[in-house]
């Protein structure tokens, strides 16, 4: 089986090449068959490997193969090699599976776009890069995919390049991501060099892991922090989240695939992949969890006051990514990956649903101009509704299981902290509120669209609705992979991931006994002894908070539509700040962008034109001035020169004659 793993990224690459080199000469049908077919084959291979894995014993679930030497220089030997284990096979299934559905959906969504071929070329390239990221067997190959998906994100955000806002957003995404990559790159360097000084020169995961113990804790902390900078950029966490909302300029299926389901979760995947390093650095884990929790609550609060449905979903994505980081940050890597997977289902679905709404509404995005769509586009409505329930954490749907797993781990894991649990739970309530605010304003009440738009409202074609339905089914069913023990499940996904991510950490007692922690240690110990009553209580709390959020949204937007207006009047300035996303973008713009340009302008004037050019041209003009003085001797009269020669000759002769005398 190991011989076939390269096929997974190979198919999208072929699709990319065929469509990319066809120069718009092929028909749309051909393009879509190539693009979707490539994904489908990749999915089949991934599925085959997955099935194969299930038949193997847990230790044998790893396939690795080096294909060819890439960069080999001295001790550094990086090979193009692929590796599939339990973690990457799940990622592959998500990427190719959800990717395939989104590809199919795009065939309908992009059908009338003149850039149809270009779109699918980029999309296949993206999937290729994403698969490279998850299947690469060394850090550098992961970095290739890491930057590659960033590139595709750039290309696809700026897909409608004629719009300035789109090309600006693309550029912003790339540059902010590069700031993250800066950290990632330094992380690679530090890891390579510090392992190297211990005699192990490698970037291969399978060789780093057994040698990770050679690193001291401060070094491991530094390395993991640097990698986390990369994750912060890619997965849009505080303070580098600013690119993701702007990224909504891209076509909606792109937002769904790249900016919800797959690429943005790469940071979570990376931490899970390097879990052995992160587990060595509790300080980093704490930072990861804290940033995750803060982002979760911060982004959710911005989501309250946005009217653009895609923007709301974008902030929701940032917030959900925060959850995943809470998961991996408390050492519950499997829970993070589990949430990554369910999130791919329901958030992918939400975006596709939003796309379907846009499709129906002639491209309208502002929820103030929507309403009452429930009857007109029922399939979209029902699937959207299911996704909203899932993300709000209503029991029985996938989001409930994964989110609750994270919250429980945040509370109980040795790396966890009740404060983080609290932040997460509050964010869960906020999520429920803004998601249902979106749902109610879009699908309920009176239709506020203009008559012309209203006239055109229609349900999307089958090619778009079928993926919606499948994703809705997955949003419900996906959760049953990880039903916790307490609800009678076996938490199969956690067990499946165990060979890669290590056994779940229950060992509260081994934790450092800080003052706040010790209080919880007793509770934890009690829980460990006395069965999961605490877990159930926490679960109920978060569900209740979620339901409360939904109720609040119902109150505000269905029952009493005047309420929000009164509310915003009351807290006018607060509302303005939130509506403007806390002015973070403006702040960054003023400090970093303008600052850099100002520094550049100053340097150019003072250093380049002033100092360097000044001294260079100064030398030139000094020579010129000296020449101006000396040229006075040059009269141009031949006889003057002759006179000079003769006088000179007399002096020389005189000197020679006088020399022996003197």
């Amino acid at each position: 089986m190991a011989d076939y793993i390269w096929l997974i990224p190979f198919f999208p690459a072929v699709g990319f090449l065929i469509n990319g080199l066809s120069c718009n000469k092929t028909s749309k049908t051909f393009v879509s068959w190539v693009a979707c077919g490539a994904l489908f084959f990749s999915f089949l291979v991934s599925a085959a490997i997955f099935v194969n894995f299930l038949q193997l014993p847990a230790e044998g679930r790893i396939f690795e193969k080096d294909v060819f030497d890439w960069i080999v220089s001295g001790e550094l030997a990086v090979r193009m090699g692929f590796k599939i284990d339990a973690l990457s096979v799940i990622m592959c299934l998500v990427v190719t599976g959800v990717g395939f559905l989104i590809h199919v959906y795009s065939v309908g969504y992009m059908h009338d776009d003149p850039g149809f071929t270009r779109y699918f070329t980029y999309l296949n390239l993206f999937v290729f890069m994403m698969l490279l990221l998850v299947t690469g067997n060394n850090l550098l190959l992961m970095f290739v995919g890491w930057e590659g998906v960033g590139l595709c994100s750039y290309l696809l955000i700026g897909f409608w390049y004629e719009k300035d806002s789109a090309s600006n957003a693309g550029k912003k995404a790339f540059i902010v991501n590069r700031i993250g990559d800066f950290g990632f790159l330094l992380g690679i360097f530090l890891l390579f060099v510090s392992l190297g000084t211990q005699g192990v020169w490698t970037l291969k995961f399978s060789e780093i892991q057994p040698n990770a113990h050679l690193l001291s804790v401060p070094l491991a902390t530094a390395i993991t922090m640097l990698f986390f900078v990369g994750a912060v950029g890619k997965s849009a966490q505080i303070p580098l989240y600013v690119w993701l909302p702007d990224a909504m300029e891209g076509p909606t299926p792109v937002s769904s695939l790249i900016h919800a389901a797959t690429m943005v979760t790469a940071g979570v995947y990376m931490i899970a992949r390097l879990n052995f390093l992160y587990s060595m650095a509790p300080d980093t884990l704490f930072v990861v969890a804290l940033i995750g929790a803060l982002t979760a609550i911060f982004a959710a609060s911005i989501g309250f006051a946005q009217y653009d449905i895609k923007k709301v979903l974008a902030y929701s994505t940032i917030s959900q990514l925060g959850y995943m980081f809470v998961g991996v940050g408390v050492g519950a890597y499997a829970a993070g990956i589990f949430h990554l997977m369910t999130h791919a289902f329901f958030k992918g679905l939400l975006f596709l649903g939003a796309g379907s709404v846009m499709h129906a509404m002639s491209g309208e995005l502002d929820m103030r101009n929507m309403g009452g769509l429930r009857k007109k586009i029922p399939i979209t409505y029902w699937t959207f509704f299911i996704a909203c329930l899932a993300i709000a954490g209503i029991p029985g749907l996938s989001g409930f299981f994964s989110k609750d797993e994270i919250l429980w781990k945040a509370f109980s894991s040795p790396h966890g902290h009740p404060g983080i649990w609290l932040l997460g739970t509050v964010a869960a309530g906020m999520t429920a509120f803004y998601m249902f605010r979106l749902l109610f304003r879009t699908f309920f009440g009176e239709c506020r669209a203009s008559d012309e738009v209203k006239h055109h409202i229609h349900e999307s074609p089958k090619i778009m609705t079928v993926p919606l339905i499948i994703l809705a089914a997955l949003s419900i069913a996906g959760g049953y992979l990880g039903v916790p023990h307490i609800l009678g499940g076996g938490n199969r996904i956690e067990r499946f991931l165990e060979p890669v991510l290590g056994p779940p950490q229950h060992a509260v007692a081994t934790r450092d006994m800080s003052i706040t922690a010790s209080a919880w240690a007793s509770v934890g110990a009690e829980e460990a002894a006395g069965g999961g009553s605490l877990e159930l209580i926490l679960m109920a709390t978060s569900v209740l908070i979620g339901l409360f959020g939904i109720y609040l949204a119902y109150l505000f937007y269905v029952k009493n539509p005047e309420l929000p207006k009164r509310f915003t009047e009351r807290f006018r300035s607060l509302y303005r700040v939130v509506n403007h996303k806390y002015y973070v973008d403006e702040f960054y713009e003023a400090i970093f962008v303008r600052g850099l340009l100002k520094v550049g302008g100053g340097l150019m004037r003072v250093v380049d034109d002033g100092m360097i050019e000044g001294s260079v041209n100064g030398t030139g003009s000094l020579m010129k001035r000296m020449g101006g003085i000396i040229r006075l001797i040059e009269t141009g009269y031949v006889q003057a020169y002759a006179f000079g020669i003769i006088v000179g000759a007399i002096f020389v002769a005189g000197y020679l004659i006088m020399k022996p005398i003197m």
Partner: protein
Amino acid sequence: MLQDIPHGFYFILSGILFTIGAIGAITRRNAIVIFMCIELMLNAVNLAFITAGNALSSMDGAVFVFFIMTVAAVEAAVGLAIFITIFRLKGTINADEVNLLKG
């Protein structure tokens, strides 16, 4: 008979001729005259070479003279050609009016 005249006299004559030529080359304005003065200087040097060669009983002096005479002939050819060009260009060969080399 020539052998009876001491070498010193030849050198003095050579010096006088050279000085006349040099002063003429500096002071005269007509390019042809300047040119003649230069010839005079060259011939003064020739005389000095011949004398020195004679005094040292060596043919080297005479050899140099031949070189100088060749150069003088070439110089005459090139120099006169230049004068003609200058005359065509400026309508005069007065050295005072030609200062194209002024810096």
